[in-house]
């Protein structure tokens, strides 16, 4: 093979024709690369594909016919296609697939690719690319897609030869779903699409540099089991990796065996049903007080498919300071990245936990289980004293957004799949919905992508139709800000028959940002009022979400009182032939509590303004520390504001 000159190495295109590809393979069915691409997707068992066509991918779209074995869902924006594929992947556990055009089509996909990369969502993104003679010439709609996406993909391909298409797709699909799942980009030049090749299946994959470890080693399991024996305050800190590995049953077994409480990250909500008494809820910046407190005070932290994100840990040095750490992850690079574990275990979470549970059982048969009564007394005292609470009454008579979320949860079918945008509503959804099933909570965790909600909900609904006969309804809880980033997908939702239910918590502002402005930026509400819920003389409902829904043939309802809200939700639950959108008018100054200010120790967690139970050392299990509920002094509220940022240091 001709070795690339340095310039070629950077351009990503091998200019010299490779001898190897042409000389072999005369057997197989003769067809074009485009036909092979469609055939390979069929042979991979792909059933649903999302995307938008364009010139540089047209040969491929030309091969999509009525008898093509997958369903094609036409979205209205490539970002929407990407998020839809993500929602589909999370809801079904399968690989989400997108086909988009080159240049702007591909660049529109960068956000969902990065989003999938952060949340380990298996995605195969196929993009068109200009012909190889034009690559590197600034041809029309040319973009260096592989180059642009390098830092945010699990892997990527530039395909210049038709003959490579089936193997590359087989590899891409395998890479996306195996090991730590993630997005794989396949950029297919027009040359490869129109070129002739010989198709055969199955394909032999050539991946010498890819060997994910799934099986744990024996001795670390014994060490981990020993740590459990020696600990009196264990906590299972469960993250999205456990969800990807479908390890709900194993997590529950471990918790039951060792009597350990379960705290979860945002993506792992529902991994074990919330009704299970061992589940303390989400931890971290907006977690429950019990979850955050238990983690701060634990002596054994068992990180299970979790990556110590700063929204979880707060100030890293002060996170679970007394704990020894067991870290279980399929990605070796996650282990020791943010905190050095005492026992590192690389492997697939479900497999590791199966083995660990067996090891623990063996030990308990000899030594019995540790008595954790005092630990649970302490945890339960936190739970009793500091439940998730909010004001149902609002100063201006609008709806309480938290109440709306609880009401949605109350009226929802237990099988409901919940999707969210990004902001306060996302936190309230995570805090207040009763999650009873895994894979029923879809939200952008790592990247925090506004606009994720509607397309992801559409993807989830397509997945629900595919796998569950549409029996799992899909509710999207969205913010008025987030929704407007991808609201055009209402068209896809209606036309492609994805009857999602949409609850917009319309507070008329970018609520989450406004909350920070309130707390840390001197109530200077710079550019966070979007006025879509206004009824002033100048501005009335821009946009009018009810009319917007109706413009897309969806049902639009507005709810301003609790009675209206209850009726609207009931009606939405009854409609299944088209999307329904409810515009809930909620209080603009509602805040998400508890809260840990960014960069602060989790010990500073504020349960509600003026109440910082961990700072005041409410860690006795006597339950007699009655003063903790009341504000300790006038400056307590400022202690929250003391947090985070330099901007607020200059306050006063």
């Amino acid at each position: 093979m001709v070795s690339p000159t340095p310039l070629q190495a950077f351009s990503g295109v091998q200019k010299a024709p490779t001898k190897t590809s042409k000389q072999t393979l005369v057997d197989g069915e003769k067809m074009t690369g485009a036909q092979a691409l469609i055939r390979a997707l069929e042979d991979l068992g792909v059933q649903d594909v999302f995307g938008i066509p364009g010139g540089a991918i047209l040969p491929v779209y030309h091969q999509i016919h009525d008898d093509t074995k997958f369903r094609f869902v036409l979205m209205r924006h490539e970002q929407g296609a990407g998020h839809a594929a993500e929602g589909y992947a999370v809801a079904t556990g399968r690989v989400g697939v997108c086909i988009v055009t080159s240049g702007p089509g591909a660049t529109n996909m960068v956000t969902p690719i990065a989003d999938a990369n952060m949340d380990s969502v298996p995605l195969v993104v196929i993009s068109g690319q200009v012909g190889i003679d034009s690559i590197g010439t600034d041809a029309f709609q040319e973009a260096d897609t592989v180059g642009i996406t390098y830092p945010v993909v699990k892997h990527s391909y530039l395909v210049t030869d038709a003959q490579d298409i089936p193997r590359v797709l087989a590899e891409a699909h395998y890479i996306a779903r195996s090991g730590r799942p993630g997005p794989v980009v396949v950029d297919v030049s027009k040359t490869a699409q129109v070129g002739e090749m010989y198709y055969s299946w199955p394909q032999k994959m050539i991946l010498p540099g890819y060997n994910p470890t799934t099986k744990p080693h024996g001795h670390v399991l014994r060490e981990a089991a020993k740590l459990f024996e020696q600990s009196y305050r264990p906590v299972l800190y469960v993250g999205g990796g456990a969800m990807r590995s479908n390890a709900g049953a194993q997590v529950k077994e471990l918790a039951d065996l060792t009597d350990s409480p379960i705290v979860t990250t945002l993506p792992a909500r529902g991994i074990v049903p919330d009704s299970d008494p061992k589940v303390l809820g989400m931890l971290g910046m907006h977690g429950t007080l019990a979850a955050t407190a238990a983690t701060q005070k634990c002596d054994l932290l068992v990180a299970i498919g979790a990556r110590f994100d700063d929204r979880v840990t707060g100030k890293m040095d002060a996170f679970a300071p007394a704990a020894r750490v067991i870290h279980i992850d399929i990605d070796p690079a996650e282990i020791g990245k943010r905190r050095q574990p005492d026992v590192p275990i690389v492997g697939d979470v479900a497999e590791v936990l199966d083995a660990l549970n067996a090891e623990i059982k063996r030990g308990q048969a000899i030594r019995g289980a540790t008595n954790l009564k005092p630990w649970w007394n302490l945890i339960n005292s936190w739970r009793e004293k500091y439940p998730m609470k909010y004001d149902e009454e609002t100063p201006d008579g609008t709806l309480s957004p938290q109440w709306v979320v609880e009401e949605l949860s109350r009226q929802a079918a237990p099988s409901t799949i919940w999707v969210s945008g990004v902001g306060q509503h996302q936190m309230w959804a995570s805090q207040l919905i009763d999650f009873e099933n895994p894979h029923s909570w879809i939200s952008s965790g790592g990247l925090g992508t506004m606009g994720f909600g509607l397309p992801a909900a559409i993807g989830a609904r397509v997945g629900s139709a595919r796998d569950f006969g549409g029996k799992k309804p899909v509710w999207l809880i969205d913010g008025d800000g987030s929704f407007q980033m991808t609201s055009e997908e209402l068209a896809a939702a209606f036309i492609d028959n994805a009857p999602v239910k949409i609850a917009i918590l319309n507070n008329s502002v970018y609520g989450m940002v406004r909350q920070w402005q309130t707390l840390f930026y001197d109530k200077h509400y710079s550019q966070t009022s979007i006025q879509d819920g206004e009824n002033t003389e100048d501005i009335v409902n821009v946009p009018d979400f009810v009319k917007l829904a109706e413009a897309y043939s969806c049902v639009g309802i507005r709810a301003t009182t609790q009675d209206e809200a209850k009726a609207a939700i009931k009606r939405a639950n009854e409609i299944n032939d088209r999307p329904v959108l409810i515009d809930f008018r909620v209080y603009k100054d509602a805040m998400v509590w508890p809260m840990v200010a960014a960069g602060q120790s989790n010990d500073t967690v504020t349960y509600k303004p003026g109440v910082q139970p961990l700072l005041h050392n409410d860690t006795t299990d006597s339950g007699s520390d009655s003063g903790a509920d009341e504000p300790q002094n006038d400056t307590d509220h400022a202690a929250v504001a003391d947090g985070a940022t330099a901007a607020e240091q200059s306050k006063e």
Partner: protein
Amino acid sequence: MAIYPASTPHSERHTLSVLVENRPGVLARIAGLFARRAFNINSLSVSPTERPDISRVTVTADVEQVPLEQIIKQLNKLLHVLKIVDLDNTDAVERELVLIKVAANETNRSDVLEIVRLFRVRVVDVHPESLTIEATGAEGKIDALLGLLHDYGIIELVRSGAVAVTRGPHALSEKVVGSEIRGR
């Protein structure tokens, strides 16, 4: 934990040998990974190996142990990366090629040539006002040579970056299982 930027002035010198598939774009992926983590590369060289399907990247950098481990793990995640070792200086042979253009005229040429002879390096170009010297060697030798030549005035200097192999009969690529990597 992890200290960023990964390289600080007092960090220890490490030599990483990275075996990669010989494909377009591999170097960009590796370089990008270093760049993102503020890893200040001292030298980097890439070239084919005894196997045409495999290239070898040699990176030297001053870096702390903890970020280095993280970088090695992240490099390992790149699918084109087949094998990485942090070469132990005592058990490896390391060489660099340098071309040095020294300002040397009639009056001091013989002094410079004396240094050339002492270091057993070669003169590859002679001009009334300059000498160009080719030198290979480990970093220490080259630094010493440059130190001595410095006083005469170095007009131009280019270094290849270090390459390194372990001592003894074994090749790094022996650890790469599987047959020749072709196609794509």
